[in-house]
């Protein structure tokens, strides 16, 4: 007959003993069987921590047509070949913008945007975290900021122009959905963050007044 403590201990370790988690651990051991030794050692030594993460793992949503999403925040990652002279032009443009892209402010949904030149300036890694669904606002870019879009993307091999009906397909074709996507605050959209910044400031001011 178990003591209360023993029964409680069993309940507490139960999730880690669940068949799904055990299967995952088994699978990882199989996969890492041919890993470098330091990896195999790390797997066994780090298993308690890893097991906790396996138990706590929640899923990932999709951003619509393509891309991963956590809560309200989606990712878009693409590796795109430069057109002839495209890398030089784009680098010049980005340098003129001082390596920042404050034009993103106007869009209102971009958390970040990354332009990384790869393979001797033959390819562009473009990565962004943005709010909402893949498709939702692209048509708005076409009518509101067509020049900015063509100025950027004309440097890409095969860009049909933002007004082309195949522009969306072109973007999707070069996009690679992330295998994993972690977002610290999945409910914090850009708009919500801005709102909370203002509220936080107002609360601080209020507390100072009454303090």
């Amino acid at each position, binding site marked *: 007959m178990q003591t209360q403590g023993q029964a409680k201990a069993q309940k507490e370790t139960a999730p880690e003993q669940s068949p799904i988690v055990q299967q995952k651990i088994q699978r990882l051991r199989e996969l890492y069987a041919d890993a470098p030794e330091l990896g195999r050692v790390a797997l066994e030594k780090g298993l308690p921590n890893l097991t906790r993460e396996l138990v706590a793992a929640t899923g990932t949503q999709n951003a619509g047509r393509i891309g991963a999403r956590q809560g309200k925040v989606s990712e878009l990652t693409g590796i795109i070949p430069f057109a002839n002279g495209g890398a030089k032009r784009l680098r010049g443009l980005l340098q003129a913008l001082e390596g920042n892209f404050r034009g993103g402010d106007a869009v209102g949904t971009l958390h970040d945007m990354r332009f990384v030149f790869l393979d001797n300036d033959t390819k562009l890694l473009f990565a962004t975290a943005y709010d909402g669904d893949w*498709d939702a606002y692209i048509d708005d870019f076409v*009518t509101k900021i067509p020049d900015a879009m063509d100025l950027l993307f004309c440097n890409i091999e095969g860009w049909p122009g933002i007004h082309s009906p195949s522009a969306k397909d072109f973007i999707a074709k070069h996009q690679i959905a992330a295998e994993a996507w972690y977002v610290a605050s999945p409910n914090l959209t*850009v*708009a919500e963050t801005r709102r909370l910044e203002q509220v936080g400031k107002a609360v601080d001011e209020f507390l100072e007044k009454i303090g």
Partner: protein
Amino acid sequence: MSSINESTGLGVARSSPTLDLNEIQATVLRQRPAPYFGTHVLFRIDDPKAGRPFLRRLAPHVDSAAGWWDSADPWLAVGISYAGLATLGLPQESLQSFPEAFRVGMAARAPQLRDEGVNDPKNWESSYGNGQVHIGISAFSNSEEQWRSIMGIARELYAGFSGVSIVAMQDFGAQPGDLNSLGYKDGIDQPAVEGSGVEPLPGQGRPIKAGEFVLGYPGEAGVPLPMPQPDILGRNGTYVGFRKYQTRVGSFNRFLQAHGNTEEERELLAAKLVGRWRSGAPLVLAPQADNPALGADPHQNNDFNYSADPRGRQAPFGCHIRRMNPRDTQLTRLTDVNIHRLIRRGTTYGPPYDKSAVSEADDEVPRGAYFLFISARAMSTIEFLQQEWINEGNFMGLGDERDPIIGLQEEGATFTIPRDPVRRRVRGIETFNVLRGGEYFFMPSLSALKWLADSGN
């Protein structure tokens, strides 16, 4: 007999039409009459060989938009779903040229439409969501007498026509004052279509490029939207969305009673949800009390924008009409409101709104709205609206709040009413309009209709 012009008070300021009005179906441009009567009939083609003869019989009775601003006669409108086009025997190449959302049908787009929970297609009425709805015919009229007469003609067309059967039929309209199922005058704001032949009414904003509403013309981006092939099939056609809502009048009234102690408070709260008073008078122009004369005048009841209401003190940011057309509201994200507009031909069905109805049984009385909407990109627009402006609040900085009238509400939903000194946040918003079924239709031009009826084996 008064013309539609007079009964809706449509602006008589004419301009030269640049659209092929003889080809475009009447309902794309003709306003819903006031008063309005009519019927929706949804057909299934049981025998593929019967489909084209059915269209052949129907085609001569489908009205064009020619002289639409003057016309007072009742009219028929026809739409065909993808399932209908496939059953009619349209070649694969042609079928594949339609947008994906149209091809798979509204039920399959539930994820994009956020039609889940009570609105999930698996809960829809049995006529909808299973590929049975092939052809939709709507009859509109401004008098009961003319409505009966046009339904008589329609009945002669399809009664006893073997190979085609009715899957759903609903009379609509005939509401006192043309009020909707929540007791409001609706359908006031419409986009002005460039080249349609009339000047915009005050408040409609500038005319929007025709290509946003009719296929084959340049849209707001300067190029025509993708059009189904062949040319004769797509040109001058458009898409119609059809969403049938059941209105939970009991829940709505209980909500008002829970959050308002006097009749005045309840009416103000209701107006804050909608953005207008029951007469149609907009809060922006009548912030304190209803103004029926204002509400009744089409030259005044829409003549406003939100520049004088930047904090939402008059019309809350999340109110229904501000969500459906933000006009010049400062949104949190880069948006072109002109590419998210819909021409609306909604119709009310069932008994009139009853202020004293508060029971759960009152929620189930068959009473509500057919939300019919028209656009050359109707599928993407409604899916955008459902995702971004109806079941979300981020575009206005409202977090998770949803449209209080047609949003799908979660447990603990709130509605924020901006107010001095402190905003009011009301709890207990429920899903007041429940989706019972729907479909995407293609609305062919008159030539396309004849082509569909005549082509093939």
